């Protein structure tokens, strides 16, 4: 068998030390990592199990309204934390739209941030993939790429980051807490994942041994709670990755948009924050024209990387709709089909 070492450190410091060795990888729920290992895509020589690390499984609500979520909190537990979903409903909705109930019960916050792309060529050892093997080439280019990136891609990689969770986190200005040999540091989620450029194998800012210990959302992110939605278009009603998704959050003042937050998923190798679109909405009326303008801005610079031009206009429509839904107000509860266009619409029709 392919032997590897399995270590179960008792402290964060031990974990970081153990994972600093070449070939080491952290093992959280393993819902992504073990699949990659079974396929031979990842072949770590040492697995550092983080599941027993103390203190990483807590959701800590700060008095000011911010929150700190330990890296080991399970996706389902976070989504079902009443205080969390009240303050950050779009994040809860995104979490509940991901994968299946079984996977959400297992998958961790840290693992979700660090899940690898679903690019089929990355998973297929017989294909050339720069991410798997730097310099090998990219067989997704010219291949089956209708779901690949339309923003931020490069000639060396056109893959997307598949996480739903990360999309509202990007919109709401989350921070990633990282423990490393040199100590603890904070990295804004927006800077955490890297675009492919010429080095698609370098996916995040993490250095060997770096452990994600928590994700924080600032207090001001909770100010969007009344108008925050996640919308995810998929190829089946549930249990599918996003074709394109968007998180939209609005702070309304006197019937106008005081501040907007928008991020897209499924379009780039990182959750894509649309700052220009947000700027376009500051002070605007919450109407279809404003939302369309923002949607146009959000996709500025978008280009097909293959047979996926349809995703650009689709993404615009999703941004506009997500904004309309956010303007309509956050529903009392996360709908039964979270983030789905088929979720029962509260109040008035958003389809025109």
């Amino acid at each position, binding site marked *: 068998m*392919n032997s590897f070492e399995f270590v179960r450190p008792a402290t964060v410091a031990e974990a970081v030390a153990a994972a600093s060795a070449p070939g080491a990888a952290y093992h959280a729920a393993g819902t992504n990592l073990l699949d990659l290992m079974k396929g031979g895509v990842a072949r770590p020589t040492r697995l550092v199990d983080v599941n027993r690390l103390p203190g990483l499984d807590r959701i800590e609500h700060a008095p000011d309204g911010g929150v700190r979520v330990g890296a080991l909190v399970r996706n389902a537990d976070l989504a079902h934390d009443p205080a969390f979903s009240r303050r950050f409903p779009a994040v809860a909705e995104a979490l509940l739209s991901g994968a299946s109930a079984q996977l959400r019960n297992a998958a961790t916050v840290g693992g979700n941030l660090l899940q690898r792309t679903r690019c089929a060529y990355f998973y297929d050892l*017989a294909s050339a993939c720069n991410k798997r093997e730097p310099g090998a080439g990219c067989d997704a280019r010219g291949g089956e790429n209708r779901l690949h990136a339309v923003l931020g891609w490069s000639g060396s990689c056109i893959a997307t980051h598949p996480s739903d969770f990360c999309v509202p986190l990007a919109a709401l200005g989350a921070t990633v807490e990282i423990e490393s040999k040199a100590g603890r540091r904070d990295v804004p989620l927006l800077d955490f994942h890297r675009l492919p450029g010429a080095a698609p194998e370098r996916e995040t800012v993490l250095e060997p041994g770096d452990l994600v210990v928590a994700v924080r959302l600032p207090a001001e992110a909770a100010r969007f709670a009344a108008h925050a939605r996640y919308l995810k278009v998929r190829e*089946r009603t549930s*249990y599918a990755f996003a074709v394109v998704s968007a998180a939209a959050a609005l702070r309304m003042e006197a019937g106008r948009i005081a501040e907007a937050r928008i991020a897209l998923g499924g379009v780039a190798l990182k959750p894509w924050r649309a700052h220009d679109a947000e700027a376009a909405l500051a002070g605007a009326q919450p109407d279809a024209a404003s939302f369309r303008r923002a949607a146009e801005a959000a996709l500025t610079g978008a280009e097909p990387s293959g047979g996926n031009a349809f995703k650009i*206009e689709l993404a615009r429509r999703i941004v506009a709709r997500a904004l309309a839904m956010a303007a309509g107000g956050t529903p009392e509860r996360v709908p039964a*089909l979270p983030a789905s266009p088929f979720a029962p*619409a509260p109040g008035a029709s958003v*389809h025109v």
Partner: protein
Amino acid sequence: MSDIALTSAPAHLRHGSSIGQPLTRRDGPLKVTGEARYAADNHPPGMLFAVLAVSTVARGRVLGFDLAAAKGHPGVVEVMTPVNRPPLAGDPDGKESPFAFRMDVLQNDRVRYPQQPVAVVIAETLEAATEGAALLAPRYEAEPARVGLDGAEPFAPKVVGAGNPASARHGDVESGLRAASHRLEATYETPAQYHNAMEPHAIVAAWDGDTLSIDTPSQGMALTQARIAGLFGIPPAGITIRSPFLGGGFGSKGLLNGPQVLGILAARLVGRPVKLVLRREQMYGPVGHRAPTRQTIRMGTDAGGAFTAIANQARTATSTFDDFIEPAADVAHALYATPALLTGHDAVRLDTGTPMFMRAPGEAPGSIALESAVDEMAEACGMDPLAFRLKNYAEVEPSSGRPFSSKALRECYAQGAERFGWSRRPLAPRRMRDEAGLLVGWGMGTAIFPALMFAGHARAVLKADGTGVVETGAHDMGQGAWTALAQIAADGLGLPLDRIEFRSGHSALPDAGLAGGSAHTATAGVAIDRAGADAIAKLAGLATRDRRSPLFGAGNAGVVARDGRLHRRDDEARSEGYADILARAGLGEIEGRGTGAADPAAQAAFAMHAHGAVFAEVKVDPEFGQVRCTRLVGAFAAGRVVNPRMVRSQYKGGMVWGVSFALHEQAVTDGRTGRVMNANLAEYHVPVNADVPSLEAILVHEHDPHVNPLGIKGVGEIAITGTAGAVANAVWHATGVRCRHFPIGLEQLIGV
């Protein structure tokens, strides 16, 4: 629902029967407690694990392996390659019968499709074998792959499907089209699909000298046994196959396949029992698939909407080394009345594994194309799709002129439409929205599937204690054979279900015929019923000839078997228990034999099909094109219903496949390499529960006195047909967009 008064029952039977009862699966408790033993659950002592090394190229030659690395890996016992593979007596590339498909069992270094086995690593543990297979690192001389329906020169096959003529003509289509007031010509494409049973193909093989014992999921134990015997040069009687449960088969476990043979060869090579289980992605090559199709349909109607001609020319694909031609065009043969009908097929040879029977082979892709075209034709005629179908209702089979043995399709249309609320459907598309503004569309399709039978045998025994044993080597793929066949068996012997023992799933039992073509319940069921009747007849002979029996002399009047007693038909008060009859005759048991097979005379006289009508509602997001099938009502008539619960679940399962066909399922193949890029259940989409929120199957009463003595047609495949087209037509009705390329992807609907 079919009432089960045994109007066409064999003469010895009366009511109080098991047939018709909605029993739950008798093997259910075993399954939910994990006690049901599937093939891969077996671990005979000394067993080793075998793992396939499969090709990554579609076409070429294996130049070599890193054998030293694989063999040197701890735990690896042996690596089987063409060099050391034990000899076979039969040629795996031979074609002894149309049902003997060529297979890849290391007979040479050729590679003819991706995922083709090129070596087998055998080890003490699964992990060691897996790593050994990875270390083999085969080197190839690769040639360009031939991919897609335009990837090679088409050829004209001689036969399609299980041996039908490749083309059929009835009347003059060209003049029918010329004379038509409304004409349609449209081309529909369906993708390659893979069976993807939950249970992967698996075998545990153990040799003892020249006798072979195997556990493997099989939909056809007798054919498998015969093919193994031929390949290994051993008598069939020396081969024992246990296949009590299958985790789905859908046609991919019907005939012996290469990986099963490799498991047997591996056990031969190492002289120990061997287990070989396919990984999910390895199911995308050597064990069959549904080939893609491109169907060009031409139709014409007169001014009143009656067909003047229907033609379907289908292109499909097969492998470079064997023929299985998806008979997609043939579904038109029996559906709609038309004076002129023309169907034909051609095919290209691609670097894929050989396609295979997959649930409703031919009918499924044929039906979605034909039902879509019928919908387009109805639109062209300005007619409601149901009215159009009724206008073209076939009173006799259009291709042959034979009457139908039974056809309750009108009742299916009526009951389905009523339940669905079809009469409220606006004729024009894009007219309905729900309260949230989603587009709503209603579509329908006609379902049809032939009522087939194979040959099957059974044995029934009445024992001295008045209980019975019924044996047949049937196959339960999950459909409920353990239950439904036992119900028939109980009635056949005139005993309550709890007083018979039903034995099945084992090759030593009488051959029950292939579990395919939706023919298993009819075939094995009739065999069982005849075996019971045979035993009862012998028992009745003992009683009616014996002066001491209350039934003495009843010979002419006849007897009725019920609840373990024989009753005089003309005087039910006179009866005698089975045990008493046997005891008096001094017999320990009495045995009956029975056979189920199609009756050639009835087949010549009648067209035999099950029918149905499916009504679908979809909702479509107007801007995103995301589609959800929110409601499905299917009404089906398929002769006698042995167990309404099992039958309904077959229909519902088929309807889910139909949704899958229309909206979800496809193998995504790289056009450069021929490799399937979504060979896993995360990316090969089939519907999840949220995709089928409302499914309803109506059982329409149908009495068929001709199809077989029990009046049973098949229910396993029909519900895919009709449904797929109904969903596609509903998408048109919702959006006004005609999608002719399946599955319907959202980019087809968003107008960009």
